[in-house]
């Protein structure tokens, strides 16, 4: 329970960081999606089963704080996570030595997928026909920049995230031991 509360708080702050921290550090059209990167990272490492709650919370927090149509990011995150989970199970388990580099490729694929699903759902669900005169600016330089920044952010966050993961796991273990002792 405490572990889940900690994860929820972390996700809440990640959503705030996405809206109020990153815009000053990255060019506006090339801003990486911090929440998506972290969900990809954790899905690849822990599997999709443990990621439903963070994905739901992350999607909702991000939609609410960024005044987006509520449910959109949740939809995008869950779709991306399902595909990433399949990719990670297929490649990450069999290639342990190249783990870090495979994760980078997975982040790149996840960023593209996220973008594609967002734009596809924008066109079909929200009927935004008039974006850029009816054509979506999908394969543009901004996407390349966004992907590059996502990879950069992932590389910066990789080791701190591993550390955080260990701390949360240890904390959970301590709580379990305490409850068992009682």
């Amino acid at each position, binding site marked *: 329970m405490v572990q889940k509360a900690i994860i929820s708080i972390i996700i809440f702050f990640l959503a705030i960081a996405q809206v109020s*921290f990153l815009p000053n550090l990255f060019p506006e059209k090339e801003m990486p999606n911090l929440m998506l990167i972290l969900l990809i990272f954790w899905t690849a490492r822990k599997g999709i089963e443990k990621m439903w709650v963070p994905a739901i919370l992350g999607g909702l927090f991000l939609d609410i704080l960024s005044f987006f149509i509520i449910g959109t990011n949740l939809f995008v995150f869950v779709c991306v996570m399902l595909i990433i989970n399949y990719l990670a199970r297929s490649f990450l388990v069999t290639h342990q030595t190249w783990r870090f580099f495979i994760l980078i490729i997975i982040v790149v694929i996840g960023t593209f997928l996220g973008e594609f699903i967002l734009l596809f759902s924008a066109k079909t669900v929200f009927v935004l026909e*008039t974006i850029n005169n009816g054509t979506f600016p999908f394969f543009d330089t901004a996407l390349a920049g966004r992907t590059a920044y996502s990879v950069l952010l992932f590389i910066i966050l990789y080791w701190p995230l591993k550390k955080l993961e260990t701390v949360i796991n240890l904390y959970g273990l301590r709580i379990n031991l305490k409850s068992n002792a009682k």
Partner: protein
Amino acid sequence: MVKFLVVIFISLVLIFLNPKKIFNPIQKILLEVAHPFQKMFFFTSKTLAEGFEFLGSIGSLKKENEKLLKENNVLISQVALLNDEKKENSMLREQLSLAPKKKFDLVSSFVIGQDSQYLNSWLLIDKGSEDGIKPGMPAIAYEGILIGKIEEVSANSSKIILLADSKSAVNVSDSETGARGILKGEYGLGIIMDMIMQTETLNIGDMIITSGLGGDLPRGLLVGKIQEIKTTKDKLFQQAIVVPRIKYSELGIVFVIKN
């Protein structure tokens, strides 16, 4: 797979429930809770960004200094000229009835969040209903440049819908020729002056100002200048692509016009 389908179903239900605005109370509560953290995050990242910028510019400071000294000399000579033009400008302002910003009851506010979905459609400011801000109030940057209107207000924060947002529609006119039209956002990709009669005259480079029609915005707030002029597909109206005078993403302080 079942869980996946359930979550997808939930997300789709949420998406279709959005127009009913049933999430507004939850959004307001969450925004209130997030407000102090958003403020802290925004200013920390702003300081960091300025620090990075400063570090990056150290190498070029010497060259910059020499350049600035030269520019300074040129500027001193221009000041004299501009003083004269200032007088002329104030005369023209009177003639055009441009909105003098001293007349407005302005509330200054810091930007604490902005659109992270790269659609450049909104800004979040740190003033809300407790400071007298209400939906529909115009928001300007320095020099009386219109940036958008207040859309949602909570106790300590407000959302400004920018001119580039698709929901934005403002009555504007060409300051040189008087041609009138409606300024619309293009999903964050730019702003366009639409519904201009074929009989009206437009010139590339003309300044676009608010026309004051409709009464929701004061007349004479500067919006931007015309970059390109085209005709609609049905040949009924003219359209002009307008370049904003400022980059919305770089704004740190904005003013809300209260009266």
